[in-house]
């Protein structure tokens, strides 16, 4: 067996269309354009068709919306972790803040959902950024720990002071006019933010973000305040999270303590590991896999955490690069066995 293995090796060749530098393509025929556009169309088309395919299963249509909200969180986690260098476990904070702001605006001031959602995105993003501002000089695991404290703290404060409806939460939030609108608004938002951020990270501002991640000393020596740049990154990420939270409170017609639950901090990370970090699209794919699994396992109660842990361990051990990185390598390279 070993003798056979030793006489051949796997050769990898870039497909002709991919030239030396990433992102520059020599496009000359419809076939090549199709080669580039197909994966993107597959994701866009797949997401847009999903509600239609599930029209016989209303329960799973709700799951589509939940997948989208987790996708927003996962994209924002990936952006902050792999392009700004801040590992944030504050997903639950963003969702909770967004949900409560939207619910308060809706029930107290009677604002319709198309006003509360954008408003709580901006206000929530600003609020979360202010909360995290003192922690911005921290790096790595320290920032992660501190950002995890905030959602726990927020839930306990609301409980102890009995504000915003206390443990009952805020009831009577308006729902969306139809489930189709709710699903398609969410899908459109996911696609818009996904492709928007993918563009941003290659713009000049995006390069500054990546500079902060790679070597913040050089950024300081270049006359740029690292804290301001990090704050901007946190604002973008938390605003995306708050957008998800605001949508969630209109979806459930309720805002409550469970929206500060740690699921919102943990599942986006798991999805990023499964889908492939640093790709932005990977986390969406991760959510498309993990969130439905989580729903299927609902009958098993807390045992689903164990299954989750197994999936996560499997990916970290066997495919730590994630599905998206693996898939795009397979797509862009020929592989063949050659005799030595």
């Amino acid at each position, binding site marked *: 067996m070993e003798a056979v293995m030793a006489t051949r090796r796997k050769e990898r060749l870039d497909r002709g269309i991919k030239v030396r*530098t990433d992102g520059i393509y020599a496009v000359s025929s419809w076939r090549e354009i199709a080669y580039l556009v197909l994966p993107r169309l597959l994701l866009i088309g797949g997401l847009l068709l999903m509600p239609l395919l599930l029209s016989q299963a209303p329960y799973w249509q709700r799951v589509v919306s939940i997948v989208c909200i987790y996708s927003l969180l996962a994209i924002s986690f990936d952006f902050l972790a792999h392009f700004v260098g801040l590992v944030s476990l504050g997903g639950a904070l963003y969702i909770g803040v967004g949900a409560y702001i939207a619910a308060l605006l809706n029930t107290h001031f009677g604002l319709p959902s198309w006003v509360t959602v954008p408003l709580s995105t901006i206000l929530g993003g600003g609020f979360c950024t202010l909360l995290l501002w003192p922690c911005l000089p921290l790096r790595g695991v320290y920032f992660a720990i501190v950002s995890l404290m905030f959602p726990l703290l927020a839930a306990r404060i609301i409980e102890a002071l009995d504000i915003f409806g206390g443990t009952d939460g805020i009831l009577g939030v308006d729902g969306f006019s139809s489930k189709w609108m709710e699903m398609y608004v969410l899908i459109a938002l996911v696609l818009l933010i996904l492709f928007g951020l993918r563009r941003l990270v290659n713009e*000049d*501002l995006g*390069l*500054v973000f*990546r*500079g902060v991640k*790679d*070597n913040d*000393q*050089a*950024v*300081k*020596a*270049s*006359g*740029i*305040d*690292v804290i301001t740049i990090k704050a901007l990154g946190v604002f973008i990420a938390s605003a995306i999270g708050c957008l998800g939270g605001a949508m969630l409170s209109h979806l459930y017609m309720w805002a409550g303590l469970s929206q500060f639950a740690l699921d919102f901090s943990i599942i986006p990370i798991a999805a990023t590991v499964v889908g492939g970090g640093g790709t932005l699209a990977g986390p969406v794919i991760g959510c498309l896999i993990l969130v439905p699994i989580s729903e299927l396992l609902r009958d098993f109660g807390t045992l689903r955490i164990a299954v989750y842990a197994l999936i996560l361990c499997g990916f970290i051990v066997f495919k730590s690069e994630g599905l998206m990185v693996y898939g795009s390598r397979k797509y862009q390279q020929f592989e063949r066995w050659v005799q030595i």
Partner: protein
Amino acid sequence: MSPETILKLSGVTKRFGGVQALTEVDVEIHRGDILGIIGPNGSGKTTLVNCITGFVTPDAGQVIFAGRDITGWPPHKIADLGLTRTFQVMRPYYSLPAYKNLIVPLFSRRARRTGGWRGGGRMGDRNTVAVDILEEIGFERDSYVPYKAASSLPTGYLKRLELARCLALRPDLILCDEVFSGLSMSEMASMLPLMEKLRQEGVTLIMVEHRLRELFSLANRVMVLNFGAKVCEGGSEEVMANEEVKKAYFGSEEVFEYV
């Protein structure tokens, strides 16, 4: 007319725990000078650079740049005034092409004001300015060197990339922390005229170096540090002849006897 003082240190002192890294360092640099700072390993050269550029706050003393007391300012504000530095350990943004590394400094407020090196006022397309700077500093555009990934460049180019990052800010003063170390003889030969050219364009240079021969050919003044204190300062011959300097580098007579 006496030459204008651009940077003045008085009594700069820094202690790390029990280690006295710098003791009352005084020095004055005129505009257009090249000041060399030499000294044995651990003599406080890099700490001095860090104190001047704000990466470390001195315990005592003053740093005055262009008439302003910048002691304790954060690094980005000091860089914004036109005082910038290279790093001894080069850490470019490896995943990016070389010219994309310059987008970060060109994004800064100072570069927007000055247009980057030779940008001439208003900032145009940052990519174009970046490639122009790199070409000026010896990245051959014809063989696409500015477009190559930073991770694929040899040390000589990386050192120059560090310098280019400073130049993108159109600085008044550059602190070069060992830009010559690790270069081959041919790389060095192309680096020397570059430094000379910068000086002629009115950029003041402070060079922390171990390569004494090259440094002495460039610098018009040299300062020697040992155990965080200034041993002497003067022209290169003057410094070479100084007994204290010989002691710092080669040890004292008694030590030789003991060995």
